[in-house]
């Protein structure tokens, strides 16, 4: 509690004066009486006189004076002290899965750094953890209000950012090699696969790549360089699986890609399944833009199902887009809320496959209504359910770029990105992902303590209620005065 005019508390000195006056006014008044004989039969009279009893008059007077003195001092109750918001952006890009020489991944080291930072915070400080990747790290750190901004990644920014604390958790000794480009094409009746390999190590390496059921080659890749090869691929419409032999590489996710020649197969439910026709038309028009050549398929054969219940797929990924009307009834409640990661706000660049819950921009972050939910479906399929009503603006209005981008992300997560030669490629990491971050910079634990609070204290003035209390006390005291006389 703070006071605007603390000197007014001198008024509390009136409390002992009130008490003294009350003692003087209520002490036994000497009265000469004709005789005490009629009081002799009052054995409890003396005991009553000595008995200490709660004097409501004195209590009311003291409360009134104290309340008035406090009200004059302008008290302000601080319900929340000033605090600092520490915004921590953790790189969740694919390179963060790289395992170092000590066996820990960069993601685990980043979490440890966040934990150390959290331990240094004061009780009123808040740690806001944000996930971002790539070039968006610094931008994400600068968003919103915060006293301290921290980026945790496996590498340092290309240029110095004085307003952002940077923490690097890379492993200088790690090495990796990965497929950075892949495509397949049919030329003269023969299907061939093109593959490019990057050697992210300090020494030149001989790396072997092979196509399942097809050819293979050993590439001499210089340190930090890229080598490519064109390999024979099996004929037919089967997927082409290209594998890089890099058993001791830090990142396993960039060692295999899958090239699928089949067009995107989509099952779109009809009105009988609860999907409004307008929704189905909008989905088809959007697919024409983001996935040219897509084919309508049955629910069993489809890679992407709109308004159709999930079924088991060998790929393990089962994308289902439920319309609001039908999805409301078919959405399964999460088996355990603890399994779900915190929801993230829907943004234009949405990665559906790595997101558990997405809230529409217009719905608000506090809304319990998820538009994207991931769960485990039949036969262990990774089910991504998207509750959407684009005509109503969920997750985004149909006439904005956000909606097709969302659907494109969904398609990419389900069937892969389009690659030259008419195939769709899955498992190909972004070009920069296979280049590991090897920087190391420890966390400046004192940064948050040195920063000025960005959240002012929350204060509530108490003058009005104290004045009301004083008036009520004195009013009650005034009212009791008329009833004190003996009838």
């Amino acid at each position: 509690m703070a006071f605007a005019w603390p000197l007014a508390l001198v008024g509390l000195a009136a409390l002992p004066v009130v008490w003294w006056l009350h003692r003087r006014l209520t002490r036994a008044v000497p009265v000469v009486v004709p005789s005490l004989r009629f009081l002799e039969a009052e054995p409890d009279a003396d005991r009553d006189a000595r008995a200490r009893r709660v004097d409501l008059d004195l209590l009311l007077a003291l409360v009134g004076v104290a309340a008035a003195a406090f009200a004059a001092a302008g008290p302000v109750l601080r319900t929340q002290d000033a605090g600092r918001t520490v915004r921590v952006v953790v790189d969740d890009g694919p390179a963060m899965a790289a395992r170092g020489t000590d066996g820990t991944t960069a993601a685990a080291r980043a979490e440890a750094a966040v934990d150390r930072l959290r331990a240094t915070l004061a009780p009123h400080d808040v740690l806001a953890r944000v996930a971002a990747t790539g070039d968006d790290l610094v931008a994400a750190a600068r968003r919103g209000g915060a006293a301290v901004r921290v980026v945790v990644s496996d590498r340092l920014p290309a240029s110095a950012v004085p307003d952002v604390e940077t923490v690097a958790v890379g492993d200088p000794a790690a090495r990796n090699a990965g497929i950075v480009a892949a495509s397949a094409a049919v030329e003269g009746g023969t299907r061939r696969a093109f593959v490019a390999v990057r050697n992210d190590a300090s020494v030149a390496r001989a790396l072997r790549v092979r196509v399942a059921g097809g050819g293979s080659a050993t590439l001499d890749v210089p340190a930090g360089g890229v080598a490519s090869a064109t390999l024979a691929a099996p004929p037919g419409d089967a997927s082409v699986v290209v594998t890089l032999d890099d058993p001791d590489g830090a990142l396993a996710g960039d060692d295999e890609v899958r090239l699928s020649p089949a067009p995107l197969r989509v099952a779109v439910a009809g009105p009988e399944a609860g999907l409004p026709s307008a929704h189905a038309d909008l989905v088809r028009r959007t697919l024409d833009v983001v996935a040219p050549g897509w084919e309508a398929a049955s629910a069993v054969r489809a890679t992407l199902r709109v308004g159709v219940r999930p079924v088991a797929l060998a790929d393990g990924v089962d994308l289902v887009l439920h319309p609001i009307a039908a999805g409301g009834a078919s959405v399964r409640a999460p088996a355990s809320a603890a399994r779900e990661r915190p929801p993230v706000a829907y943004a234009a660049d949405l990665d559906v496959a790595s997101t558990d819950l997405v809230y529409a921009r217009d719905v608000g972050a506090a809304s319990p209504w998820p538009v994207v939910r991931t769960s485990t479906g039949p036969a262990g399929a990774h089910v991504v359910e998207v509750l959407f009503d684009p005509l109503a603006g969920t997750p985004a209005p149909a006439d904005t770029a956000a909606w097709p981008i969302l659907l494109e992300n969904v398609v990419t997560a389900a069937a892969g990105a389009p690659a030259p030669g008419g195939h769709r490629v899955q498992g190909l990491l972004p070009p920069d992902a296979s280049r590991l971050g090897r920087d190391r910079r420890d966390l400046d634990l004192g940064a948050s303590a040195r920063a000025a609070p960005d959240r002012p204290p929350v204060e509530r003035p108490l003058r009005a209620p104290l004045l009301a209390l004083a008036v009520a006390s004195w009013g009650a005291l005034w009212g009791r005065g008329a009833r004190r006389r003996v009838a």
Partner: protein
Amino acid sequence: MTVRGPGPDATLFPPGFLRLLASVPALVRRVHVGAAAGVHAARGTGGPFLFRGHRAYRPGDDLRRVDWAVLARHDRVVVREHDAEREVRTEVWLDGSASVGPEGGRVAAARAAALACAVGLCGGGRVRFGVLRDGAATLRREGDDPADLPGLLEAIAAEAPAHRAGLASALPALCARAPSRARLFLVTDLLTDADPSVLARAAGRGLGGAVLHLRDPDTWSPPSEGLVEAVDAETGVRRVVRWTPARAERVARRAAAHALPWAHAARAAGLAFLPFAPASPPEDLLARIALEVP
């Protein structure tokens, strides 16, 4: 009857009260005329045997004065009075104890005694004024003419309440000293341990008059609820009590119970029992004396 000047103590006897005293003879005469309709007034020729009227029989009255004719006709026991009987000696005795003083008691008692003296003088009788204090009955002043009233008032005003009355020993002596057929006014608060039966000793002697009981039915009452340090006027003993309405009611009941046997004893002795409060107007007391005291 004429009372000149402001008197010895203007506080005790203000001009308004003196005017009341001056009206006492006329009031008494008017009351008695009304009470004894069809009978001649006291004034005039006819000597001491002029029949004045009837009054109710009181224990101790001479049976020879009972009007048997009235008893036979109306079944009422009355005695006949004659003018000569009015000219009886009037004894006015004031309780001089300290307990009379507090809370306006002294003023009220002095005025009651003055009224009694005035009533005694208005019939042409003789008035003796005395004080009961420390167990003794001390005569202070006598008078047999209305002109003696100022002197009596001075004697009354000179008595400041002090010490104890000692009624247990003073009253028997007083009753023994009072002449037969005398009119006795006893102004007292009766705050005594004396046995009320001491008054009964006056029975059978034809005494008239009244006990003017100060304070009854009122009791002393502190100004407000709360702690009070009560100081006994006679003994000086102090006692701190918490005064409450319930306690005030209990004290009032005890005071009334204390006065009751005194009232019975007074009537047994042929005396009227007239309680009055310090705050009550003296006109009320005078009217009651005129109506109830023969």
